[in-house]
C-alpha cells in the first residue's frame, strides 16, 4: 500500500501556538483515512498543512511525493466553515461550477465536458433540483452537500473533508457518506476529520491527534484504550471499554475546532 502523504518529525504552528508538535504519520493511497481527536487537537491543522494552506515549521511533509504547495492542484478540500456573506447572489450551480476555475483560468470558456462534470457532481450529491436556488436559501445540510459537490467537481486525487457529517440531517449525512465510500472506488483517497469513534473505526486508516499524532495506522492498532486515554485524558475511560466510549462532539463542546 503506497502512501500519498508522508510526515516525519513535522511541527505545525498556528500563529505563535504549536498546533502539532513533532509527529510522524502516513496516509495511504486509495483509502479512507479518518483523523480523530479532541477539539483543538490539530485535526484541521493537519488537513490545512496537507492542502498547502499552512506551512510546516519543521520536519518534512510530502504530498504525492512533492511539497504540499506543488501538489495543491491535485487536492480538493471541503472546509468545515464556508461562510458566504448573506445577500450574495450565488446560485448552487454557480457555486459548484467555481470548482472548475483552476482548470478554466481567468478567461477560459467552459466546454460541454466541463459542464457535464459540474452536473454529474450535483447529481451525485442529489442537489440537481436545487441548481437555481441561492446558497442563502438552503438548509445547513443542503449547503454542505453543495460544498461537497464543489469538492468532487474539482480535479483531484485527494479529497479532504473537515467534519463532513457533523450536525447534518440523516439524508444529507447518508448522501455524503456514500460519496466518502465511493471516491476510493474511483481511485481517489479520502481524508476526513471526525469526532465519531465508530466512523473512525470504519475507516481504512486512522490518525489520532492530541496536539501531536498519538498514533497512525489501522484503526484496531491505533484506537486502543491506552491511546484514547492519552488523547482525551478521560478518567471515565477506566470505567468503559473503548468500544462503548462516546467521545465529546462539536455539539457537546462549543469550542473552535482545530
Amino acid at each position, binding site marked *: 500500500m503506497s502512501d500519498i502523504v508522508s510526515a516525519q518529525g513535522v511541527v505545525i504552528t498556528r500563529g505563535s501556538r504549536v498546533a502539532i508538535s513533532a509527529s510522524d504519520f502516513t496516509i495511504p493511497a486509495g483509502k479512507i483515512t479518518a483523523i480523530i481527536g479532541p477539539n483543538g487537537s490539530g485535526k484541521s491543522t493537519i488537513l490545512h498543512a496537507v492542502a498547502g494552506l499552512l506551512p510546516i515549521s519543521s520536519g518534512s511533509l510530502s504530498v504525492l511525493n512533492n511539497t504540499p504547495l506543488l501538489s495543491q492542484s491535485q487536492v480538493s478540500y471541503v472546509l468545515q466553515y464556508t*461562510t458566504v456573506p448573506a*445577500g*450574495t*447572489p*450565488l446560485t448552487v450551480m454557480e457555486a459548484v461550477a467555481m470548482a472548475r*476555475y483552476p482548470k478554466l483560468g*481567468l478567461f477560459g470558456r467552459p466546454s460541454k465536458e466541463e459542464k457535464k462534470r459540474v452536473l454529474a457532481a450535483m447529481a451525485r450529491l442529489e442537489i440537481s433540483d436545487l441548481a437555481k436556488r441561492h446558497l442563502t436559501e438552503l438548509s445547513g445540510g443542503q449547503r454542505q452537500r453543495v460544498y461537497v459537490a464543489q469538492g468532487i467537481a*474539482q480535479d483531484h486525487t485527494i479529497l479532504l473533508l473537515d467534519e463532513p457529517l457533523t450536525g447534518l440531517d440523516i439524508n444529507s449525512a447518508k448522501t455524503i457518506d456514500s460519496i466518502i465510500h465511493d471516491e476510493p472506488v474511483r481511485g481517489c483517497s479520502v481524508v476526513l476529520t471526525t469526532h465519531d469513534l465508530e466512523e473512525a473505526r470504519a475507516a481504512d486508516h486512522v490518525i489520532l491527534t492530541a496536539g501531536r499524532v498519538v498514533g497512525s495506522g489501522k484503526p484496531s492498532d491505533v484506537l486502543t484504550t491506552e491511546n484514547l486515554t492519552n488523547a482525551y485524558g478521560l478518567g471515565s475511560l477506566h470505567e468503559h471499554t473503548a468500544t462503548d466510549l462516546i467521545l465529546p462532539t462539536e455539539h457537546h463542546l462549543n469550542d473552535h475546532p482545530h
Partner: protein
Amino acid sequence: MEWFLDPFALGFQQRALAGGILAGLMTAVVGTWLVLRGMSFFGDAFVHGIVPGVAAAVVFDVNPLIGAAAAALVMVLAIELVNRQTVLSEDTSIGLLFVGMLALGVVIISRLDSYSGSLTTILFGDALGVTAQDLVTQAILALVVVSAATLLYRPLLALSFNQEKAQLWGLKPQRTHVTLLVLIAAAVIGSYQSVGTLLVFGLLVGPPATAALISRTVPRMMFTAAIIAVVSVWAGLTLSYHFNTAGSATMAIVPVVLFFIVLTITKLRSRQREKVESRV
C-alpha cells in the same frame, strides 16, 4: 419634455451629467465587489481617507489626483500595519484611520484663506465645475476600473466566496484583494471631483446594495447597479436643477432613497407571495 431637457441645455450641465455617469459606472462596478465582500465600512473610511491628500494638493498647488492617490496608499498601508502589529479587529484600524485622515485633511485645509470653500468642494464635490480635461481623466479611469473589475470576475467571485478556497483554486486571493483596493482607490479618485469625497460613498454602496435586493447572479447585480447609478446621476441633477439643491448631494441621495423604495417593494411582494402560498 422641457422639464427633462432643460437641466442639461448648457455645456457645464452636460459635463456634469457626463462626469456623474462616468463616476456612477465605475463606482457601481467596483462597489458591487465592495458590497459582496462586506467591505462597506472600509469603503466609507477610504473615501474620507483621501481628504488630506486632496487638501495638501490644493495647499501646494499640485494635481489633486496625485494627492488623492498618495493619501489612499498611506491609508491602506496604515490599516495593514495596525492589523499586522496588533490583535485589534480590522474595523478598529479602519475606524482609527478614518477619523485620523479626515481630521488631518481638515487641519491642512484650515491653513488656507478660502478654508470653508475649499473644504466644501473637496467633501461635497462640484458637479457643475467639471471640465473637459476632468472628463478625459475620468473616462480613462472608468475604462480601466470597469475592464479590470469585469476581467477579474472569477478571482473576485472566488475571493468573495471564501479566501481559503480561492487560494486552493490557485486564484491568488491576496493579489486579488490588493487589486480590488487599487480599483476602489481609482474609482474614488476618479469620482470625487463630481460628487465629492463624502458623497462618492453613496454611489459606491447605494446602487450595488439596491441591485443585490433584486439580482439572482453577480453579473446581473453589477449590470443593475450600473443602471441604477446612471439613473441616480441623471435624476439627481434633474432634481437639483428644478429644486435648486446641491447637485452632488442630490445625486448621492437618490440611490439611498431608491434602496428603501426597492426594499419596501420586495418585502411587500414576498409577504404577498407567502400569503398566497399559505392559502394553497
